[in-house]
């Protein structure tokens, strides 16, 4: 365990984030361990998505957003001036709250990342597409529909496709921002099962406002409130014997 903890996959140190004058993250520090599922919980608007988006620098796209402090991936700063952001985002994939497949064919959706990074072409690309779809349990169902427009799929299939699209570029880390909030309970359960399969190979950080989900899927849980990371630790401990009173109030359903 301690050997495992020695090399965190992601390490956040004293992170402050501002949207203009508004401070959305206040002195956040945490470590995310490899090949585990870390859940970030907290009431809506507490900064979960914001924190997640600092890991792949998606906040760079927001005008007026300023980041102070640092995030390290495998011990290397991701905010260093010479850091290649496109390469960073290749290594840290993201799945969004609403399924957002491109209005292209199923095949082109999955092949997209591999193509732009020049990972493969021709038969090798076909293989990547097949592997990625198989990894999210879509291959058997969709192998005859690879040319269909992805927007014709069901919500669950679309979200799985978005996960496959990320897997196709072989990232290390998967960021998931409330990936099930647009899905029905059965689809949610199945995506949660999928996450359990994926965690053997990937480090997963999932944002959820659903405490049951965090309890079901994650090994570590961090609780956020008003831009602060109140506490983070093994899921079991955070839910049964939290160190902070605010965490206890939240997980026992007294607010949020």
């Amino acid at each position: 365990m301690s050997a495992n903890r020695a090399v965190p996959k992601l390490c956040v140190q004293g992170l402050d984030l501002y949207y203009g004058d508004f401070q959305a993250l206040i002195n956040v520090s945490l470590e995310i361990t490899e090949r585990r599922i870390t859940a970030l919980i907290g009431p809506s608007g507490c900064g979960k998505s914001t924190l997640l988006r600092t890991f792949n620098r998606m906040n760079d796209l927001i005008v007026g957003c300023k980041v102070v402090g640092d995030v390290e991936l495998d011990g290397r700063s991701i905010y260093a001036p010479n850091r290649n952001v496109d390469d960073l985002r290749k290594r840290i994939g993201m799945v969004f709250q609403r399924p957002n497949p491109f209005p292209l064919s199923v095949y082109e959706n999955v092949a997209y990342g591999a193509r732009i990074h020049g990972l493969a072409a021709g038969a090798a690309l076909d293989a990547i597409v097949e592997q990625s779809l198989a990894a999210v349990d879509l291959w058997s169902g969709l192998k005859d529909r690879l040319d269909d427009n992805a927007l014709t799929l069901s919500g669950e299939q679309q979200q799985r496709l978005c996960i496959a699209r990320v897997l196709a570029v072989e990232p290390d880390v998967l960021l998931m921002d409330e990936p099930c909030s647009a899905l029905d309970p059965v689809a949610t359960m199945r995506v949660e099962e999928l996450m359990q399969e994926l965690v053997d190979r990937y480090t997963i950080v999932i944002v959820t406002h659903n405490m049951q989900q965090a309890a079901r899927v994650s090994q570590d849980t961090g609780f956020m409130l008003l831009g602060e990371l109140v506490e983070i630790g093994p899921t079991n401990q955070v839910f049964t014997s939290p160190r902070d009173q605010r965490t206890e109030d939240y997980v026992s359903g007294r607010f949020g």
Partner: protein
Amino acid sequence: MRFRLPEKVVERSLLLVAMSSVAILLLITVFIFREGGPLLVQVGLGNFFSGAWDPQHDQYGIALMVVGSFAVTSGALLIGVPFGIACAIVLAEMAPPRARSILKPAIEVLAGIPSVVYGFMGIVVLLPMIRTHIGGPGASALAGSIILGIMVLPTVIGISVDALQAVPRSYREASLALGATQWQTIRRVVLPAARSGIVAAVILGMGRAVGETMAVIMVAGNSVQMPHSPLDSVRTLTANIALEMGYAAGDHRAALFATGIVLFVIIMILNTLANLARGRLKKRSVVVVTLAATAADLVKPRAKPEEQ
């Protein structure tokens, strides 16, 4: 208590005003077809689209003018479309807000400049340039294409920008989050997603080029002849009407109206295609709305296409 117009009265009056524009459209349609239709029947479509235009000897074939219109229009699109789409990409995707706040009004001004001014600039600047650097007399299909290429820019840019901005942000985010560069995102996701709107922009730009009259007359040379190179002089359908209407009488006059019918039909087809491309209309309403838009084009050729 102050007197207030009853809601109903206001509503009715507005409706009446709106309907009157449709009425004007119908009037124009009926008028053109009544003036030009009989001649079409009389000489037959085959003769009307033949290459012999000689009103003094009762020859009314408009093929050379069709070629002229086709030449300057395709030239204009060749120049205006790549340039316009590039501008639209910069405007919608890349320009920082400050650059955008300069570019956008500039393009709107471009749309508001009277076409005679474009023609004037063409005569003063463009024709001498063509004469000295490329050769020929200057006034030519090439000159017409260049001037029209500039004149279609506001149409192409405006509608393309709308189309690009209608592409959901989530597509861009998904692409960037996969490590795509901004340019890869634009080329592989945003442009394909905006394709139908951009197609509509091109078609409407085409309509704009086909319908333009004054500027083309001033720079294209207006000879009724088969052009053999871009440096040859050409006469467009619109130019033919404007140049000869002043003195035409009888069948000659009717032939010009019949030319108007041809233009009317071309513009109507283009508008219909554009609206279909944008998927904005239910099939049934296409005809009505297209008719209205066509009338607007004919009455006031610079009319800006409605915003999305």
